[in-house]
């Protein structure tokens, strides 16, 4: 497939935004149960603001993918069958929840609504945070399923796709949260950086597992089944046009095999190995700068990862478009 930069940015930005929100609420939940010291509201407010900015940027990027963005509202209608439609519904709902979560912390308007049997208070932010957590996971699942549900694109048609969207988004979000905490709430920085380390490591496992799986895939469709002629030797002489078509532009990445290979190694190093090292160093030295650096490098790595994710998928329609004449 041809990686569209709108979608590369959309998926990486909202993934990090969701992860950041999950990280904030993780800290708040820990604090509610007394596992971590309580943090100032400004940490949550700033964090929610940053998460919201990432989500808005992602949404803006997504509009560049549409031919007719003015009609985008229609995309919310087919949630019964279309994962894309479900994403279109969940994304604004999640953004709204993050917004109110941030506002509740910003204004300090956080009355206690109920009490758990253990005595832990249930505040508005706890309710909003729980809703936001559910929506964040729902959004990861929608985004992943948009690709995983296409059974012809066998590189994507695996539960690993959804798992990786969760892990990679989570990794970048937790790394960003740790970098923010270094400034706003140093006491929770080690916990967040620790989680970022764990999720990044899990992300590496998930991504490498996908790479191994995809390297072993055998194409299900062949030129023989595509045109229905059972002869071992078939060569396309012309695809019916010379100047290219939508089919030659949308479904081919146009990069060389060597380029693809080097991007693969590049993202494995920049999205996983280097951030893991920087997080480890940042953690041991309590150096927020290193963690911020880890986030930027990881985000760049994830851009490359997403580019590769699209480029690697080999669409069966390509069988029909092999020879210009």
């Amino acid at each position: 497939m041809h990686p569209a930069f709108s979608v590369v940015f959309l998926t990486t930005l909202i993934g990090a935004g969701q992860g950041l929100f999950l990280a904030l609420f993780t800290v708040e939940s820990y604090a509610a149960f007394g596992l971590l010291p309580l943090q100032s509201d400004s940490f949550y407010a700033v964090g929610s603001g940053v998460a919201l900015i990432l989500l808005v940027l992602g949404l803006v990027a997504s509009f560049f993918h549409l031919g007719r963005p003015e009609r985008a509202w229609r995309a919310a209608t087919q949630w019964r069958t279309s994962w894309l439609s479900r994403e279109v519904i969940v994304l604004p709902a999640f953004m709204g929840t993050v917004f109110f979560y941030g506002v509740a912390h910003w204004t300090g308007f956080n009355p206690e609504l109920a009490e758990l049997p253990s005595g832990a208070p249930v505040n508005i932010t706890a309710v909003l945070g729980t809703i936001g957590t559910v929506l964040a996971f729902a959004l990861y699942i929608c985004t992943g399923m948009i690709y995983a549900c296409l059974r012809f694109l066998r590189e994507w048609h695996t539960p690993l796709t959804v798992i990786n969207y969760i892990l990679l988004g989570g990794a970048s979000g937790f790394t960003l949260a740790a970098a923010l905490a270094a400034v706003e709430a140093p006491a929770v920085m080690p916990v967040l950086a620790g989680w970022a380390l764990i999720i990044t490591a899990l992300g590496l496992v998930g991504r490498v597992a996908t790479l191994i799986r995809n390297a072993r895939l055998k194409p299900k469709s062949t030129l023989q089944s595509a045109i229905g002629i059972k002869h071992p030797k078939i060569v396309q002489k012309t695809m019916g046009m010379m100047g290219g078509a939508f089919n030659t532009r949308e479904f081919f990445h146009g990069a060389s095999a060597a380029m693809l290979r080097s991007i693969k190694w590049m993202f494995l190093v920049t999205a996983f190995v280097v951030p893991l090292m920087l997080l480890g160093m940042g953690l041991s030295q309590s150096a927020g700068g290193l963690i911020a650096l880890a986030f930027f490098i990881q985000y760049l790595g994830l851009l490359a990862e997403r580019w590769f994710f699209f480029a690697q998928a080999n669409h069966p329609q390509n069988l029909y478009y092999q020879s210009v004449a």
Partner: protein
Amino acid sequence: MTQLALVIDLNVCVGCHACVTNCKEWNTSSPTAGPMVDQNPYGKDPTGTFFNRVQTFEVGEFPNTETVHFPKSCLHCEEPPCVPVCPTGASYKRKEDGIVLVDYDKCIGCKYCSWACPYGAREIDEHQKVMKKCTLCVDRIYDTTMTAEERRPACVRACPTSARLFGDIHDPDSEVSRAIRENGGYPLMPEWGTSPANHYLPRRKTKLRIREDELERADNPLKIDQQLPKPGKAEPSLDDVTSW
């Protein structure tokens, strides 16, 4: 239930692109599907939206090769994977005749449906920014102001070799059903379970066997018993004498 479809005879197609041209002509000027805009039409790399392409494949190894011309358009699948993924409902399959269509007023041009079609049958219109594909000339085949002969898809009407048949594949007595049944019609990429409605008829070896007794009448009574010397071929035979 009706399922309209095309049946394309690969044994007959000569790869002349008449169907491509007529499709483009009709759908560009049609009030519902058109225009189908081209970019760079007279420049170096002309490109544009088409509903139908004719491709050419070479089967076998030289010198034992055969050239196969292969027209390709939306197959109007009975289980169309392109329809449920559409977030706007712009892509739909008509219940009454099984035609898969795009509502150009609803489509947001997200291209998701084209990813979900294994055949590459959908093309975005770079000018209108909506997804386009073969409509089976839905704006012709029901137009009662046309004669019955004209109420067929433009590609079918244009084909000089009658390689394209059009009809209801759910009606067992239709021309298309008979062609599929009797000539080994097959769907493309059956492995995905899309049940394409369009079928293709395979290449067949057409051989004419002529025995000697069909060239020279063996049952000519004058010749059977060899009573008379065999008359020259130019001589009038009994038939020639009696048939006037």
